[in-house]
């Protein structure tokens, strides 16, 4: 089921081919139902990378991902939360309830030591995968 909010893709944004593919994956599959494995892995990578800079709560993570990808990645925000909770169960990130910038209590996530190692592993995997796809795409 296609979701009906595909943001306008400007011309100069198509210069990042792999992010473009990801964009379509993200939008298509995160409407209803479970994300596919590929998407799950990359979402984890994004979250871990974002949290490696500083600890933040879920909304801030969504905003940061949007910011850092220069508005290309409009992650369906709700899909972050299952990923965050899964990562927490697996022990890559840990959570703490603290006062946010607005004064309300919010759940802040931060990377654990094991999470740092996992981040490096995932980044390496992603580099391998994307270079493999590059090879195939560049061929044709």
């Amino acid at each position, binding site marked *: 089921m296609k979701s009906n909010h595909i943001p306008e893709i400007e011309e100069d944004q198509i210069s990042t081919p792999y992010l473009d593919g990801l964009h379509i994956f993200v939008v298509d599959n995160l409407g209803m139902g479970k994300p596919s494995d590929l998407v799950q892995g990359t979402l984890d990578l994004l979250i871990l990378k974002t949290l490696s800079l500083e600890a933040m*709560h879920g909304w801030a993570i969504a905003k940061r991902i949007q910011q850092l990808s220069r508005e290309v990645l409009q992650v369906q925000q709700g899909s972050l939360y299952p990923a*965050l*909770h899964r990562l927490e169960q697996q022990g890559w990130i840990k959570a703490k309830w603290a006062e946010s910038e607005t004064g309300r209590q919010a759940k802040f996530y931060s990377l654990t030591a094991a999470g740092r190692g996992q981040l490096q592993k995932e980044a390496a995997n992603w580099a391998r995968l994307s270079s493999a796809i590059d090879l195939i795409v560049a061929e044709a």
Partner: protein
Amino acid sequence: MRWPEKFSIRLQMIFRRGRAVERLDDELRFHLDRQIAENLKAGMSPEQARSAALRSFGNPALVRDQAHDTWAGLWLERAVRDLRYAVRQLRKSPAYSLTAVCMLALGLGAPAAMYTVVDRVLLRPLPYDHPNQLVKIQESGSKGPGGWGGPYLDLHQWADAARLLHQIAFYGSDNLKAVSYLQSNAGITHVTAPIISSNLWDTLGVQPVLGRGFKPGTDWGSVSAEDANSILISDAVWRTAYNSDPHILGKSVQLNGVFHTIIGVMPRGLTFPYAGALPPVPLIWRPVIITAAEKVRAHGLPSYEAVARLAPGVSLQAAQAELSGIQSRIAQQYLESWEREQVNSIVLQSYGDTLVKDDVRKSLLALLGASAVLWLIACVNVAGLMLARASSRQREIAVRGALGASRWQIVRQLLTEGLVLSVLASLAGLALAQLTLRLFAHALIMQFGIHERLTPSLSVLAALVGLTVLTALFSSLWPAIGAARTAIEPALRQGSSQSGAGRSQHRLRAVLVVAQIALSLTLLAACGLLLRTLYTLRHVPLGFRTDHIVVANMSIPGYKFAGRNMLTDLYQPLLDRAEHMPGVQSAALMTEVPLGKTFSMIYTFAADGNSATDARQRETKSQFRAVTPEMQQVFAFSMARGRFFNSSDTPNSPAVVVVNRAFVRSFTGQDDLGKIIGTPLVNYGKNRRAIVIGVLDDERQVSLAQQSQPEIEVCMPQITPDSGLYKATEGIAMDLAVRTSRNPSSFMPDLRQLLRAASPDLADSNLTTMDQIVEDSYGSQQLATRLLEIFGGCALLLCVSGIYGLLAYLVHQRTRELGLRMALGAQRGQIMALVLRQAGWMLVVGSACGLALAWFSSVLLRMFLYGVQPHDPWTMFAVTAVLLVCGLASAWIPARRAAAIDPMQALRTE
């Protein structure tokens, strides 16, 4: 470290679930509020901001569920939720839940009770080292196993020659029932005191917990002379008779008047050789002393029971073959050829198998099977109930399916309900089982020797848990799958009936009812056959009267009367006093009352010679009793020829004996009673040969089901202390039979007073009535009949309720149709016939299948039956008739209700 962190997160998830759920909601709400705030800042209106935020977020409920699903311990949470829901559903319909629980309780209680008994009698592990290596050795011959091991000479040769047997030990079997008198802290304790060889404990692999065993003597297996007066006591004796005295070793106590030293205490729970059931009195063990006479081959050597341990890795058959070879050599050493024939081979059995008689084992397993049939009937019945209930919950299940429950979730929910019912039922069933066992306590004592209160052991409880789960699966899986498979849309449609099932479901339920009827008929047929057996047994002509006779089974402390004449000092005064008690018509003493099973003696003739007469005389094994003349007044039996003993038979008058018809037939080979009168038979002493003066009519004196056995009765007043008969018959056990018109329960205390006055040791005697003894003699049939009556009755009840339930449901379903029929002109009688016809075809088909099943299963009952064939047509007919009548009666009420339908009302209902 990842591990501890992960573990603590998991723990937190399990214990602070509710809190975590709240926090998740807070988290998501925070996100949404932030997004809305940002949208407002960007200039949108509040509604726009909200809808934009939701659009970019996604479905909050879905996100929440997805996040929740990642948590650990999800299965537990789901199970608890299912459980809570199941309990709520069951509470909402208490009638259904209660009915189902009651039915399942019946179905689970019966196997629980039977398995407790089976576990206790058949499956109890023996307290010895590697008990499956222990075997029992019996000499056998042309007449089959002799029933004992062998004389010392043979045992010694086995021990020397057998390579495949690791060790052989032996023990005395004669004195297992005789009571010995042990001096204890509180007076005299009755104990049983078998004699054992010095190597018995080594063979069994047990050691005394205190002290030591008997020291071996110079001869193999015998006990050293210095331990000739030592005894070993059991843990029960140590605790009850000596208050667990820590300084018990070396204590000198009197056993039967002779001083013995206690040299050791055996472990708790060791009751060799009674290992199958607890002995009625506590055990001590005495040493076996091998006399010089036993080492020389002669007639009438004392025999011992032999127990041995197989060498590691040796099979029973191999050891048997080796021993048989050895035995054929040993048999040549016997003096007479007829003796050799009886001992020329060996029978070897695993020791565990010898502890329970074969027919007892078979009967227990048959009863276990019957209880399993009852379980099956209960499960089938409850499955029918669940099918009905599932069909009435169609709409609810359809709604759940529409809301997103998968088929597996619905099945899981229904299975949980079934499991809750099963668990409740198993608790109730366990209570029922305990109640039943308590009710049958007397039968358990008599039949299986179980004296202690039976509680379910761990293995029984584990089996019950397994059976509970199986019950839940069996009774609720099919209805659950059926319910989950129903189409959602038709059930949700507005005009459709709230409940209702297709024809296939009706047929399924009808098939279940037919199955129930068939199984119930099997149990009822077995019950019917046994009832007939009991009736026949009760009316077997015994040959003597049993009413109004009170019996005292006395153990006589013979050692106290050493050197005296027990007849004049104990028995005659006792008899006189008993006869003069108020309300007593006559009283008699005898070594054992007929059917008594307390102290039976067998008299065998030692006729050397090979003629046919000699062989016949040797083979006559007669029941032997010493009785007083008053026995004829107490039991009112008749003489076929000659006279019974009377007051004219004294120590000075000619010695006389009485025999019975069966004896004459066996001893002389003919039926001529006149010839036996006057022939000399038994020696009362030197130069005192007794002649036969009378022949008794046949009576069932050993067992009701067995034909009359040959019997010889000697006259107690004529036995003097110098006669060989004195030692054999007096001073061990004696029964006092009193014919009284008084009520037994009021008479027994007075009798006990009398016994106590005669001798303090007699105060503990077992008092019973002749009627009770007769009842106990067909105890195994009685027990089986009572149990099968209960099973059969429950099965009938379940069946009737199954038929009623199905028909009531069908009538309810067809209310509209029946109303329409009546409006169109059908008579009430025709409507009733319609309903009854439905019940009728189920009953007929079920009965036919049931009769076929009963045909095969009643063959298993053969060992119980007496006087009736397993395929007796009258019984089958009567039982089927009972079932049909009950079935039709249960169908009557729904039929009446159907006929009473008001057509106008019916057409208006949904």
